[in-house]
């Protein structure tokens, strides 16, 4: 089977674009990725399009209506916050399987402001605030407090994640925000669901990202100088664990994916130079240091305390600013992470460049649950 390479990848600056349609936002990133690859829409053999908010709305076809209706296969993908990574992986599989040599993956989302989630069905009475909370800040607060229970992780340690990622975003012109948030600012921000304050919740933004994936044959034809090799592409669903159906278990689904990804890539966590992981809330990031094997179980608090995950540290995490500050347009996030890591592997990340980066990992979680992990490698 052919290796698969990223030849073009890009994202729009995340923000709020109510004047645009979802297909227009998707089209923007698609054209940027095509330009990055030096290719045209006529060169694409298939499109894999990730979007959640209009999952039944044929967004992929409408993207092509904006940039060129070439009649290629279009697959529309929805998988909660793993939507973009899933679209990318479907594209990867089609090339890996030898069906196509050149395909396009697009992730796009237009978001409202405010709380996501909420417990209870449509019948009877509202369950939110009656049977606990189903809001996303609460669900991930409870996942964080499980870590506190097991390892004594503190509110301050969770808050430090947000300080770090907001700092990183000051170096990323494509992030929604470029604002420093000192520890006391994060900890004294409005409490949403303890221990997550408002500055420890990801930002709902509009955004899009896209990638052109090609076979080895095509990559050699186009030139390898900026190519990025996909060493692993993994998708898991939540395996049975005792509390998963009541308290979504984002740990087991990630550990399962990480084990498969490291095996597929033939590398270990010690080989990874940078990570973009799913910091939908500050509490979540802490869990994934351990879930991805970046440290031993119980060491995540120490990792954030000792700046090992900051730019310049042993394994920088979310140097883009992460979902906390770059923003989290659900369907675009999984490909935006791939853009970020690819940019470092190409040595083009400017002020936030992780020096000497050769291998990077991206991770997303879709609650309910899905986990997508990609391991990428510098070629030239």
């Amino acid at each position, binding site marked *: 089977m052919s290796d698969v390479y990223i030849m073009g990848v890009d994202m729009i600056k995340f923000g709020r674009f109510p004047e645009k349609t979802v297909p227009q936002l998707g089209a923007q990133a698609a054209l940027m990725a095509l330009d990055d690859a030096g290719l045209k829409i006529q060169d694409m053999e298939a499109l894999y399009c990730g979007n959640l908010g209009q999952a039944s709305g044929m967004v992929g076809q409408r993207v092509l209506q904006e940039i060129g209706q070439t009649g290629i296969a279009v697959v529309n993908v929805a998988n909660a916050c793993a939507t973009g990574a899933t679209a990318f992986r479907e594209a990867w599989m089609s090339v890996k399987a030898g069906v196509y040599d050149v395909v396009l993956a697009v992730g796009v989302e237009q978001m409202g402001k405010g709380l996501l989630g909420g417990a209870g069905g449509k019948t009877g009475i509202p*369950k939110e605030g009656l049977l606990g909370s189903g809001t996303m800040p609460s669900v991930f607060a409870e996942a964080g*407090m499980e870590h506190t229970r097991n390892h004594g992780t503190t509110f301050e340690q969770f808050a430090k994640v947000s300080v770090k990622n907001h700092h990183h975003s000051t170096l990323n012109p494509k992030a929604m925000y470029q604002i420093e948030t000192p520890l006391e600012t994060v900890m004294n921000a409005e409490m949403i669901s303890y221990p997550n304050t408002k500055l420890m919740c990801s930002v709902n933004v509009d955004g899009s990202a896209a990638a052109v994936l090609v076979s080895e044959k095509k990559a050699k034809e186009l030139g390898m100088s900026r190519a990025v090799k996909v060493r692993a592409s993994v998708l898991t669903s939540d395996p049975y664990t005792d509390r998963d159906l009541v308290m979504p278990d984002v740990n087991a689904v990630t550990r399962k994916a990480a084990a498969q990804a490291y095996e597929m890539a033939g590398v270990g966590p010690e080989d990874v130079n940078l990570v973009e992981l799913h910091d939908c809330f500050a509490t979540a990031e802490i869990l994934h240091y351990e879930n991805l094997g970046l440290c031993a179980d119980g060491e995540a608090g120490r990792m954030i305390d000792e700046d090992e995950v900051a730019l310049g540290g042993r394994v920088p995490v979310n140097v883009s600013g992460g979902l906390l500050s770059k923003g989290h347009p659900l369907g675009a996030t999984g490909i935006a992470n791939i853009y970020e890591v690819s940019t470092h592997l190409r040595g083009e990340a400017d002020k936030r460049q992780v020096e000497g980066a050769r291998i990077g990992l991206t991770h997303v979680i879709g609650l309910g649950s899905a986990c997508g992990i990609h391991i990428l490698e510098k070629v030239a």
Partner: protein
Amino acid sequence: MSEQSAPLPVVPHLKGAGTDDPYLEGHKCSDCGSIFLGVRENCSNCGARGKMEAIRLSNKGKLYSYSIVHRSFPGIEVPYVSAIVDLDGGGTVKGNLINVEPKPESIPFDMPVDVVFDDALGRKDGDGNSYISYFFQPAA
């Protein structure tokens, strides 16, 4: 509209609403022993088919994890404690933890709790029916 004879259960697995003996019902797989809330045909742990048996879940348990909710949807009273409780004998349930101060220092992990049943905070459905819900509170 007829007069409501008894409060309705907030979820189908709350049994005995309107009696003096309400309880939570689980379903246990007789092959692997996994316990689920709500009726189901098959086991999502071992895949066994048609092996689910209804069981009465304990009214006692221990606090596993929680969050303190300070912002929720409009009209929802805050703050409140959203709690995950492991019931004695099996089964995990999420609900409001009441009669504690909503501060981390007042909410120790593994604190013993009772499952108690009461009116669903005055909430009524579109037909004006009232409901009975379950809550957790520090064990008596």
